[in-house]
């Protein structure tokens, strides 16, 4: 009896020892595996975010050569190896506001969202939010009001075809000269985004006379000087959505404010060398108007001041711009 009890106890002890060792190894193994998988996942995500940030920054840098000097418009295309969604965001706070680019890329047929925002203070990109594709077209035009304020960049996906119907001659010529395959002026396909200049049932309607573009039931106003007749802002309204257009316009006006003050200081410097002093007061007023602009509709009021200043500058002995 006694021997049997001893054997039983030994068996039980042995079983306990084995199971504890196994249990310990299993728990430790599970913890190590969990951490290994967790760290790998984090690393993959970080890698994706790094790549997204890098591509975003590269897109911004690639816009530099598109800054215009004499040209009235320039175009280029970029191709990204994977399907990409460019999220165009805009922040109108601060001295110049910010152009924010955020990219999502497709992996295994799924969009990988990243929260990395790449921002630039000196870029103004007009596009709809979340343009998708592998190939993108970028064209740029200078915006003057009355002096050159900035170059505007219009980004479109090669998948989106814009068809300009009954466009005025100078616009049709400019679009044809750009030779951008997704901007056409005739033979519109049924899936093309129709841009009409003389009314009709179109996706986008341009009222050249009243100076606004109607898109998704909202009106975006544009204006300009005799250099481009407001075409730079007209294209901006065509290629972007309401929120981006209004925000980027506010950013442009922030730069206009600073440039007005810069030219007013410039006038004071040149005055010491015998140049005329006639424009500073109006430039300060323009600066105030630019700072207070709330919506594109107020461009009409600014346009009056801009035309006065433009005439005053043209009449000067020493032109400021």
């Amino acid at each position: 009896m006694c021997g049997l009890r001893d054997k039983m106890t030994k068996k039980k002890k042995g079983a306990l020892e084995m199971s504890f060792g196994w249990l310990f190894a299993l728990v430790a193994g599970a913890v190590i595996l969990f951490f290994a998988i967790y760290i790998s996942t984090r690393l993959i995500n970080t890698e994706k975010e790094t790549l997204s940030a890098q591509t975003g920054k590269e897109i911004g840098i690639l816009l530099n050569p598109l800054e215009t000097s004499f040209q009235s418009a320039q175009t280029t295309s970029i191709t990204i190896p994977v399907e990409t969604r460019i999220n165009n965001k805009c922040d109108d706070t601060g001295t110049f506001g910010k152009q924010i680019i955020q990219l999502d890329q497709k992996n295994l047929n799924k969009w990988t969202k990243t929260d990395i925002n790449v921002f630039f203070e000196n870029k103004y990109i007009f596009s709809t939010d979340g343009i998708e594709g592998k190939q993108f077209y970028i064209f740029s035009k200078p915006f003057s009001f009355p002096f050159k304020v900035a170059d505007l960049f219009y980004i479109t996906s090669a998948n989106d075809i814009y068809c300009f119907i009954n466009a005025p001659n100078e616009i049709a010529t400019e679009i044809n000269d750009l030779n951008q395959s997704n901007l056409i002026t005739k033979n519109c396909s049924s899936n093309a985004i129709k841009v009409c200049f003389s009314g009709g049932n179109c996706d986008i309607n341009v009222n050249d006379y009243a100076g606004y573009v109607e898109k998704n039931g909202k009106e975006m106003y544009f204006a300009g000087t005799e250099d481009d007749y407001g075409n730079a802002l007209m294209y901006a309204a065509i290629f972007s959505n309401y929120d981006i257009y209004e925000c980027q316009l506010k950013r442009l006006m922030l730069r206009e404010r600073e440039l007005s003050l810069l030219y007013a200081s410039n006038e004071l410097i040149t005055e010491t060398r015998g140049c005329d002093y006639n424009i500073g007061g109006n430039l300060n007023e323009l600066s105030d108007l630019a700072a207070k602009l709330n919506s594109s509709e107020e461009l009409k009021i600014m346009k009056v001041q801009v035309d006065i200043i433009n005439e005053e500058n043209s009449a000067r002995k020493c032109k400021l711009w």
Partner: protein
Amino acid sequence: MKKDKHGQLKIQQMTFMLIAVTFLFILVGLFFLSIRLYNVKQTATTLEQQNAMLLVSKLANSPEFSCGNAFGTSRTNCLDFDKLMALWNRIDNYSDFWGVAKIEVRKIYPDESTLCDNFNYPNCGDIKILDKNVNTQPAVSNFVSLCRKDTNRNEIYDKCELALLMISSESKK
């Protein structure tokens, strides 16, 4: 008692082993991360430098710098010296605008190395428009014409000189 001690010893062995393995993984991970971080920093520096290289050829045409039509017809790579002085006085607002650490314009003919300020302008030859006081990459430069209005016996004329526009990006390393 002997078996208990033997079991405790085994657990201790395994614990030490696990701690050692964990440390090994952490060290390998840290090594890998430091390499990765270095690469990311290098990529950031390369991108900044690329930005500076592309910017230097186009900055002269941006509205804050360019001559526009102020000196007759429109000119490319022409900087308005008077406007640069006005910009120099308002540079605080532009500190992050171009995404570079340093912007400098140096007159090279006629050679004049005096730093420009409000008192000695226009009798100076070096204008440090932006200087963020950070570690920078070697400057990239572009030849430009530096123009301003000048007078001779009450007659105003355009005076243009040869200058070098230099841009340095921040070094992230």
